[in-house]
């Protein structure tokens, strides 16, 4: 499960099971299918996003400090290039 939350108080902006995470050198490309409205909500908070990949016993926290995030409306695809990753138990 992938969750995108606002970093101020952790409000849930988007949640999906339809996503991919690929390592690209020292960054991680997170891609997820979203509708335009959800993408717009996420982009409204693009400077203050935390992304969580939640597994059964652990969470992985990602963020993009240089705000590399964009939406491809023709594919309904939201792309986030994260430069931070921390794994922690839950």
């Amino acid at each position, binding site marked *: 499960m992938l969750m995108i939350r*606002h*970093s*101020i*108080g*952790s*409000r849930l902006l988007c949640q999906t099971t339809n996503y991919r995470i690929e390592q690209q050198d020292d960054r991680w490309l997170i891609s997820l299918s979203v509708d335009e409205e959800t993408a717009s909500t996420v982009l409204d908070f693009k400077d203050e996003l*935390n992304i969580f990949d939640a597994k059964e016993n652990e969470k992985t*926290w990602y*963020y993009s*400090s240089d705000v590399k995030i964009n939406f491809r409306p023709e594919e309904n695809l939201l792309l986030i290039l994260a430069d*931070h990753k*921390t794994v*922690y*138990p*839950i």
Partner: protein
Amino acid sequence: MIQLYPAGTRYTVNNEWLESNLSFSFGEYYDTSNIRFGPLRVFNDDTVQAGRGFGIHPHREAEIVSIVLKGKLKHEDNLGNSGIISYGNIQRISAGTGVLHSEFNASNDEEVRFLQLWFSPNEKKLTPAYEDISYDVEQLENNLLPVISHTASERVAGIHQDLTLYLSKLDGKKTLNFQQEVGRKIYIFMIEGEISINNASILQSQDAARITDIHEITIQANQNSFFLLVDLPGGGF
């Protein structure tokens, strides 16, 4: 201008283990007209039931200050810090590039009440850091006691922002004057009691005031009072 925010205007989150009164947009409460006051971004007045608390979670790019008013708060983080703070202590976390922490009520039979304030840092990508200090509670009496400041000292916690946070316990009928440089802002939160600002604006328990364009104020206690004052930078944030 002195803008008053009565206690009842705060947004309240209430569940089986937490009562949180939010002065600014936070979590499920989102109001575009109430995002921040200068670098002050979060002011939560939290009461956590015995043995309960906030499990491990991350923060970044925020200076997070906790002030315990009652009970005991247990902190642990991934920087290797742990400790229990109570009334007379201040905790500051510089989240910087990222910190994971938990905050729990350290008691199994008493609730903990604490104020949590978040400030925007004056620099991004700071190395995460933790500090807790003890201030001299006797020095609160009829005095503005600095407890957090960008100019830290042994009993004043440091912070990566051009601000100073004072606590004060003012006896009834006593007055204090506060002056700051032109262009700065003042935030006041009443912990308990009642004060008047400049013989006009009255703050009662849990009320707040956001002050701009007035840089010299007289605070009079109408009864024994305990309050917090933050001297904040002006400018855009």
